[in-house]
């Protein structure tokens, strides 16, 4: 007769205060030994009801609040809201404004993907070093943001019809310099990580997201593309002036943590290409017309879009960032809803973690790339 040992499962609270949860986020994990058998995410610790606040503000007044959604990607958050307002009110965007937006959006993608890769390594136990390499590069781009908008992270820069103000003199040359140097950093980063045996051991075949589940669960962004679904809004919607740019959409094959890491690296390389093209093609400022002057920049307080509703979406670094606006003809939005990519990407967290060790649950969460200010809104 074989002796049997009585076992029982153990319920563990991961978070809300824990460095690996990227903010205040809690996972109630049920463990059998070290294996995750059930996992329930708990969120809302940062909830401030951004949408309710937005209903009491003017359309332009909402912009500084969007900076604080996903604080790595203030520029793309502004961009998303601008796009929805332009759709609602039928505003044309100036040519130089379009280019500046694309430049800012792609720089933001570099910032986000660099930082998330650094944090992912942190989650794997490589404390500090990879993250500092990432932050060193991120800082150069944040300097550019500061020169253009006055703030490193809370940029509040993109506006309906263009951008808030033109970039200062010499900014484009500085940007070209940063973009020229970036591939060298990526090579360095990849040398350390892509073929690193420990990284591969930890990430390959971990947290696989099947293609069908990804689509069905409305997962978007690099996370979906790592599972091999070719869906990039820059190509699909072709919003702004993205159709003018030559870039490829990197796709993963397995859909594990490693693919999510590598798709982001490849996306950065494509962004560098786009930035080179945009910085070369950007038209000179037309004298006397500021990028904002053509639209509503002059009198934001009296800006009233016509009655109606619009859903505007962009490919933010984390996935589809959508803004749903309902206007009743007053200066304030009647309804202001944000479709937050990292909130919805969390839907599949439990499926990805089941059957893996609790240490893997941490890197799976890291590979989803969430920012809690955006999840909770």
């Amino acid at each position: 007769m074989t002796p049997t040992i009585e076992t029982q499962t153990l319920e563990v609270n991961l978070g809300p205060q824990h460095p690996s949860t990227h903010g205040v986020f809690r996972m109630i994990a049920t463990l059998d030994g070290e294996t995750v058998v059930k996992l329930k995410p708990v969120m809302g610790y940062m909830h401030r009801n951004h949408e309710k606040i937005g209903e009491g503000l003017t359309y332009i007044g909402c912009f500084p609040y969007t900076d604080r959604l996903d604080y790595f990607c203030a520029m793309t958050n502004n961009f998303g809201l601008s796009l929805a307002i332009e759709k609602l009110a039928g505003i044309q965007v100036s040519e130089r404004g379009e280019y500046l937006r694309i430049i800012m959006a792609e720089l933001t993608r570099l910032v986000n993907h660099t930082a998330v890769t650094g944090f992912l390594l942190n989650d794997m136990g490589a404390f500090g070093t990879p993250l500092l390499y990432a932050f060193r590069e991120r800082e150069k781009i944040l300097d550019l943001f500061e020169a253009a908008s006055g703030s490193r992270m809370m940029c509040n820069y993109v506006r309906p019809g263009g951008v808030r103000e033109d970039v200062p003199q010499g900014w484009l040359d500085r940007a070209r310099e940063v973009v020229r140097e970036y591939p060298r950093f990526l090579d360095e980063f990849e040398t350390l990580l892509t073929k690193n045996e420990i990284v591969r051991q930890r990430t390959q075949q971990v947290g696989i997201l099947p293609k069908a589940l990804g689509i069905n669960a409305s997962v978007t962004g690099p996370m979906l593309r790592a599972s091999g679904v070719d869906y990039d809004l820059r190509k699909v919607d072709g919003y702004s002036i993205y159709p003018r740019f030559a870039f490829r959409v990197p796709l993963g094959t397995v859909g594990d943590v490693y693919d999510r890491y590598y798709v982001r690296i490849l996306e950065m390389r494509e962004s560098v290409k786009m930035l080179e093209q945009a910085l070369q093609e950007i038209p000179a400022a037309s004298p006397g017309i500021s990028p904002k002057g053509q639209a509503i920049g002059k009198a934001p307080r009296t800006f009233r879009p016509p009655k109606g509703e619009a859903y505007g979406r962009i490919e933010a670094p984390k996935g589809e960032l959508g803004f749903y606006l309902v206007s009743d003809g007053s200066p304030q939005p009647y309804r202001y809803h944000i479709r937050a990519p990292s909130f919805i990407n969390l839907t599949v967290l439990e499926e990805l973690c089941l059957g893996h060790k609790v240490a893997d649950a941490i890197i799976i969460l890291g590979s989803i790339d969430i920012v809690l200010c955006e999840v909770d809104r």
Partner: protein
Amino acid sequence: MLPAPHELKQTVEQLLPGVSLTLEGDLLLVAAHELAAVCRCLKEHERFHLDYLANLTAVDYPPTPASGGAGRIEVIYHLYSMAEKHGPVALKVRVPRSHPAVPSVTPIWRGAEFQEREVYDLFGVIFEGHPDLRRILMWEGFDGHPLRKDYVVEDQDALEER
């Protein structure tokens, strides 16, 4: 290619006898009890193949002196197709504010799970058939639904004085 909204309406009505949709601008207004059938048809029929629920949210319209009645809540669905790369199709369900109940689309699109919980949390809409309908952003035991227009936001200054 996705058919134009009025053709789409006709096609769905032909495919699902007994279902009648109303066109409001580019939006399709669906009756709550027909929602699941319409969604399944839009997702599965090869003409549409809308496999991706991008956005799900609600808007509150409390009664006004002009409209009278009990007011209404509208639940909005924005559907796209990842396979065919087309869309959007916007659906709208209108329910009375006093008893807002809508069938859940989570069995059709998993992506609705958290979004329906959010709408339940902030608007009080009951999604019938949702596997795990709990509050998601506010805490359990919280009273009220903050995104309803008549929700009274607590006075921050008054709290400090107390």
